[in-house]
C-alpha cells in the first residue's frame, strides 16, 4: 500500500481485509462439515486456520500469524497420515458423511458460538474506545503469563510431550522387549531394518 494514502483509508482497508478473512475462515470452517470426503474436510479446516493466521497478520502479529500457518498446515498433513493409518477398513478413502449426532452437535455448537460472541462483545477489552492505553496492559499480560505462572507454562510442555510418547508406547503392538529381548541386551530386531545399520 502506498504510504501516501491517508492513514484513515489505510485503516479501513485493513478492516475490510480482516472482515474478508474472517468470512473465509467461517465459511471454510463450515465446509468441513458439508463436504463428503476426509481429504476435503481436512484441507477445508487447513484453509480456515490459514485465514485466521492471515487475519493475525492484519493485527501486525507477523510472527504469530506465519507460525500459525506453518503449524496448522503441518498438522493437517500429519492428520492425513493418521486418518489413513487408523481408520479400520479405510472409510477415509471413500465419500462419507462428516457429521455424527447432528441435532445435539448443532445445538451445542450454536450455543457455544453465541456464548463466545457475547463474551467477546461484552468483555471490557483494553485499548477499546474509552479505556486505558494498551502498552501497559500488554506488559501486564506478559508479566502475568511469564512471571508468576511461568512454572505452569514450563511444566505444561514436558507433560504434554510425555503424554504423547506414553500414548504411542501403550498403543504400539511391539514393545522394547520384542525389539531387544527379555534382558534388553540383544541387537534390535525390527521388521524393516532402520537406515543407520541397526
Amino acid at each position: 500500500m502506498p504510504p501516501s494514502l491517508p492513514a484513515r483509508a489505510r485503516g479501513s482497508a485493513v478492516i475490510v481485509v480482516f472482515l474478508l478473512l474472517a468470512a473465509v475462515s467461517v465459511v471454510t470452517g463450515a465446509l468441513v462439515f458439508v463436504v463428503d470426503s476426509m481429504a476435503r474436510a481436512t484441507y477445508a479446516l487447513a484453509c480456515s486456520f490459514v485465514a485466521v493466521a492471515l487475519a493475525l497478520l492484519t493485527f501486525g502479529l507477523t510472527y504469530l500469524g506465519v507460525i500459525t500457518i506453518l503449524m496448522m498446515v503441518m498438522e493437517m498433513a500429519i492428520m492425513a497420515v493418521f486418518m489413513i493409518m487408523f481408520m479400520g477398513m479405510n472409510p477415509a478413502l471413500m465419500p462419507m458423511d462428516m457429521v455424527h449426532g447432528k441435532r445435539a452437535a448443532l445445538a451445542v455448537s450454536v450455543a457455544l458460538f453465541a456464548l463466545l460472541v457475547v463474551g467477546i462483545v461484552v468483555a471490557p477489552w483494553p485499548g477499546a474506545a474509552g479505556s486505558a492505553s494498551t502498552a501497559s496492559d500488554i506488559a501486564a499480560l506478559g508479566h502475568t503469563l511469564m512471571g508468576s505462572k511461568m512454572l505452569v507454562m514450563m511444566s505444561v510442555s514436558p507433560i504434554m510431550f510425555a503424554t504423547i510418547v506414553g500414548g504411542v508406547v501403550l498403543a504400539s503392538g511391539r514393545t522394547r522387549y520384542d525389539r531387544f529381548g527379555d534382558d534388553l541386551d540383544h541387537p534390535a530386531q525390527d521388521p524393516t531394518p532402520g537406515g543407520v545399520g541397526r
Partner: protein
Amino acid sequence: MTLIPVWWTVATLLVLATLAASAHGALAARTVGASPGVGALLPATETARLLRQERRTLLAADSPLWRIGGAGLALIPLLMAAVVPLGPPAVLDSPIGIVWFNAADVVVWALVWLLGWGANSTYALVGAFRFLATALAYELPLMFALTTPAVAAGSLRVSDVVAAQSGLWYVVWMPVAFAITLLGVVGFSVWGPLSPAAAPDLAGGVLAELSGPDRLLAGAGRYLLLTAGSAFATALFLGGTQGPLLPGWMWMSLKTLVVVLALVAVRGRLVLLRPDRFLEVGWLVLLPLALAQLLVVSLVVAS
C-alpha cells in the same frame, strides 16, 4: 512502492529454473546417448508438448484438490523467493523472513499430498504418503539448520543475514547447517535421492496420472522450488549479494545458479533413499548434527 522487486524476483526465478531444467535435459540426453544439445531444449519441448496434450480424466478424481496441488507447487516458490534480496530489495523484506520461508516449505507437504490424493490412483496415493514420511525426516533438521544463520546474525530478516556475512560467508563456519539445508531443498523439491514419492517403481508416484497443463505446472513447480530453495540457501550461507567487482544481483544469480546446477548434477549420481530407512537417518543422525551445529554457533556468538 515500486514493482521492480516483484518483476525481478519472478524473472530471476523463471530464468534460473529454465536453465536448471535445460541442464537436466542435457544430462539426461547424454545418459541415453542422445544429443545433449537437443536435450537442453527440454523446457521448450516439454512446455509445447504438455500445453497441447489433452487432460486425462480419471474416475472419481478429486479434481479441485488435484489442481490446487499442481498449481500450488508453482506458486509457493514465488512466495519463498519473495523474502530473498536477489539484487533489488526483497519483495517482502520481512523481519521474520526465515520463518516465512519455513512456513512456505511446509505448505509443500499439503500440496504434494493433495497431488497424490486428487488423482484417485493407488500409485499416486502411495507416493503421497512416501513424501510425508520423507518430509518427517528432513523437515526438523531443516528447521534447525535454517535457525543457525539467524542465531549468528541475530535476526530472522534475510537481508540482515546477508549483511552479517560481509566478512565471512556462513558456509565456512556452519557447513553442516548448509549441507542439511541443501538436503531439505532437495527434499521439498521431490528431487534426486529424496524423490521416492515420484519414483519410477511407482510409475511416477504423485506425478503418475498428471497430464497436460497440470503436469506442466507441477513439473515447473519442482524446478522453481529447487531454484527458490537454492536462492535462499545462497542468501543464508553463501553471502547472497556480497562479492567484489560485479554488482550484487549478478553475484546472487551466479551463486544461485551454481547451487541449483550442482543439485541437478547430483540427481542421477545418488541412490534413491527409501523413506522408512531415511526416517531413522533423519532423526538419529541429521537432527543431532543440526542441533550440534546450532550449539557450536550459539556458543561462538555468545562468547
